């Protein structure tokens, strides 16, 4: 349905699909179409129900562009929060073989979420490395999900290959991410 919508309206901007409706619920959106405008710091500038005037938006955001130097520091700080979160998710993942199915799901979700987030927010010099790490986490997560999140990891078909690829991606990120964020990723720490 979301793909049909994108094709129908020839959409070129980012289009997200939340099948769960969880984002709408958490943001207090119950009527559609609704819109929310956030400034560069994440403060809510305005919200609308129904169509809105583009000129109103442009007036509200006038001058609200982050200067390159200041924005760079903020962006790196934000990226590093996700790197730290990924590192903590790795630490939590140590318990994977001994926990319940729900907990194993949570561990895999957290790893994938943090990896995606750090790739989305990576500064330009770390974009390739971060994308490779996120892709490796997604692929490895899919292997585990396809196998039903087994307690015994050898039961997951393709596990050895995806785990090796993920370890390689983590290893490649250790030095640059430690230099940038002071966070040391751990090879071999993911399930």
């Amino acid at each position, binding site marked *: 349905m979301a793909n049909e919508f994108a094709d129908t309206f020839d959409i*070129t901007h980012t289009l997200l699909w939340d099948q769960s409706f969880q984002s709408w619920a*958490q943001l207090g959106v119950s009527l559609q179409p609704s819109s929310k405008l956030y400034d560069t710091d994440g403060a809510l500038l305005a919200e609308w129900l129904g169509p809105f005037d583009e000129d109103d938006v442009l007036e509200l955001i006038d001058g609200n562009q982050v200067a390159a130097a200041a924005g760079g520091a903020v962006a790196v700080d934000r990226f590093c929060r996700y790197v730290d979160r990924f590192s903590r998710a790795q630490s939590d993942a140590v318990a994977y073989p001994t926990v319940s199915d729900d907990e194993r799901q949570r561990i895999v979700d957290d790893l994938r979420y943090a990896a995606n987030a750090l790739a989305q927010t990576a500064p330009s010099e770390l974009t390739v490395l971060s994308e490779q790490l996120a892709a490796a986490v997604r692929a490895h997560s899919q292997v585990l999900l396809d196998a039903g999140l087994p307690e015994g990891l050898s039961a997951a078909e393709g596990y050895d290959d995806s785990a090796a690829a993920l370890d390689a991606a983590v290893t490649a990120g250790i030095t640059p991410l430690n230099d940038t964020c002071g966070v040391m990723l751990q090879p071999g720490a993911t399930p």
Partner: protein
Amino acid sequence: MESVPDRVLGSMKKRFAFAAVGLLGLSACGSDAGRTTSAAIESNAEVSPLPAIEVDDVTDDRRVALDAFVPSDRPTLIWFWAPH
């Protein structure tokens, strides 16, 4: 007659002084349609006003972290629409 998506999306395509994000939901189908990430359990309010959940990026065909879109180096307009 021009539909609401036509009017809104047409406007959003004109100029991009801001980052435009369309956030589609499944209208009137409750909450059993999709799995949500447990990452939402962790509060993320100090980092972003958006929930720390994964959603599908239709344009790039992958799962993404919603809260990673805001804050940003440009203001961000999020438009919520539930196709019928």
